[in-house]
């Protein structure tokens, strides 16, 4: 029996660069800066004043009675998933529904409800919590919300691995298609970390850039946080063909690993293993890859290690690779990062256009690769990798390639 191939037949995204996938991709190709100011919180002062904030007003998405059941992270996931499904042209019928599942990766939880709970208890001195705190906080809530709004009754669950959550979600969905457990997986990631408690915690880590985030630059000072969601419709090739769907890319493979070393200090061995494992799974050679969407957080340690690892794995092929970190434009959306960056990968494959690493001024000898500085670059893109190397040493790399029948 041959293993089913998995193809991408639709995608959606909401990010600080745009309220949908086309806007987000346009922002990426223009090298647009999606970073804006963060509203001050009544809960305290923090030095983090800028982040990749979604501009769409979500407060009127549903009537108030329904709204209060969802945390911001779930609302973002619902929007991206609806766009992805509409884009795929797929109708979730009674017959298809049990064969169509959902996986949404997130790194945190429904933090808005956590924060509201503490405000209520410690500041307002209320005796009881809000009633929907439990279902809003649970990290599986975005998946539940997507399954409810799209009518997906197949295998559905949340996935979490900090900043690798989205890629692990894709990897899990890929296995569901390959194993035949599902025909369709609506899969992606989301995060809504622009809230006092999370910003406060990141401030303490002192790895948030005081100014613009400039990945791979000699003078880089750290990351900038972002929020958003990306979702794709992953479908077995057979199912996509049978309904005459437009295929935007083939999901070629995924590779995961754990550093098993330290919660915060990155190691080169785990990422290297994930990269090699992904290439092997995708049956791709280093010479087949034209673009890598880097994890590229903009911290000193991450970027240097990532470039070292790419050199180790790609050898001479590293010279002809295009690399970029789109995080400088949309911010690091943590558990949702890989899903927003999936839009960059699909776009690069379809338009033979590599989105840039913006804010780049001074090359760093430790990152001596073609990081596509400041401007998008036209070139043939046959296959791409997207890296995610998370805090906690959980790594996941995914591979897409142009679909060839």
């Amino acid at each position: 029996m041959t293993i089913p191939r998995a193809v991408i037949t639709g995608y959606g995204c909401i990010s600080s660069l745009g309220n949908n996938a086309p806007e987000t991709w346009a922002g990426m190709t223009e090298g647009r800066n999606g970073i804006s100011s963060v509203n001050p919180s009544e809960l305290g002062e923090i030095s983090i004043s800028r982040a990749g904030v979604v501009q769409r007003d979500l407060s009127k998405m549903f009537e108030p009675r329904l709204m209060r059941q969802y945390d911001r992270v779930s609302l973002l996931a619902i929007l991206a998933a609806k766009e992805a499904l509409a884009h795929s042209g797929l109708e979730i019928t009674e017959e298809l529904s049990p064969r169509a599942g959902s996986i949404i990766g997130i790194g945190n939880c429904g933090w808005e409800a956590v924060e509201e709970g503490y405000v209520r208890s410690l500041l307002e001195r209320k005796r009881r919590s809000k009633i929907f705190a439990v279902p809003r906080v649970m990290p599986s809530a975005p998946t539940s919300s997507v399954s409810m709004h799209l009518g997906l009754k197949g295998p559905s669950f949340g996935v979490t691995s900090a900043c690798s959550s989205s890629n692990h979600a894709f990897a899990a969905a890929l296995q569901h298609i390959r194993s035949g457990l599902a025909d369709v997986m609506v899969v992606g990631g989301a995060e809504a970390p622009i809230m006092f408690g999370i910003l406060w915690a990141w401030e303490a880590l002192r790895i948030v850039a005081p100014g613009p985030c400039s990945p791979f630059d000699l003078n880089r000072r750290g990351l900038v946080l972002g929020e958003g969601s990306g979702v794709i419709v992953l479908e077995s090739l057979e199912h996509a063909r049978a309904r005459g769907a437009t295929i935007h890319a083939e999901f070629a493979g995924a590779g995961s690993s754990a550093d098993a070393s330290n919660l915060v200090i990155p190691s080169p061995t785990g990422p290297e293993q994930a990269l090699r494992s992904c290439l092997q799974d995708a049956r791709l050679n280093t010479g087949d890859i034209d673009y890598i969407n880097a994890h590229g957080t903009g911290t000193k340690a991450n970027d240097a290690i990532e470039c070292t690892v790419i050199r180790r794995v790609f050898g001479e092929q590293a010279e002809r690779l295009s690399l970029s970190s789109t995080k400088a434009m949309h911010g690091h959306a943590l558990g949702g990062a890989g899903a927003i960056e999936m839009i960059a990968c699909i776009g690069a494959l379809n338009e033979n256009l590599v989105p840039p690493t913006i804010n780049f001024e001074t090359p760093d000898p430790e990152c001596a690769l073609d990081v596509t500085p400041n401007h998008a670059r036209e070139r043939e893109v046959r296959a791409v990798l997207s890296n995610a190397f998370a805090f906690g040493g959980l790594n996941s790399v995914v591979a897409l390639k142009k679909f060839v029948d």
Partner: protein
Amino acid sequence: MIRLDHSTPVVLNLSHSLMPANLLPELSKLITKSLSIPEENAKEITEETTLESLEISSLELVEILITIEEEYDLEIDIDAVEARDSLQTVGDLIELGRKHGLGTSSAE
């Protein structure tokens, strides 16, 4: 009154001078407030209105009880199952309020 220790609830024995004898209009408003629906919907609520007809889920019913607790600073100590089993109409809710001292000139 502020209590930091939430684990040992105290049932308040209060005498609420603002408590109205006719609880329906006020409780109806609290229901709309709890459900985040427009307040004018309260006018259509009678004692015979069933909670089912308002499409109140078991969680929302508990939320209404919380709103009543907060509004009148009292404690209604029933769980979700008991609430669902014993409360079918808005009238049942009013009766529950009365048992807890609402709408009477002095608490029992």
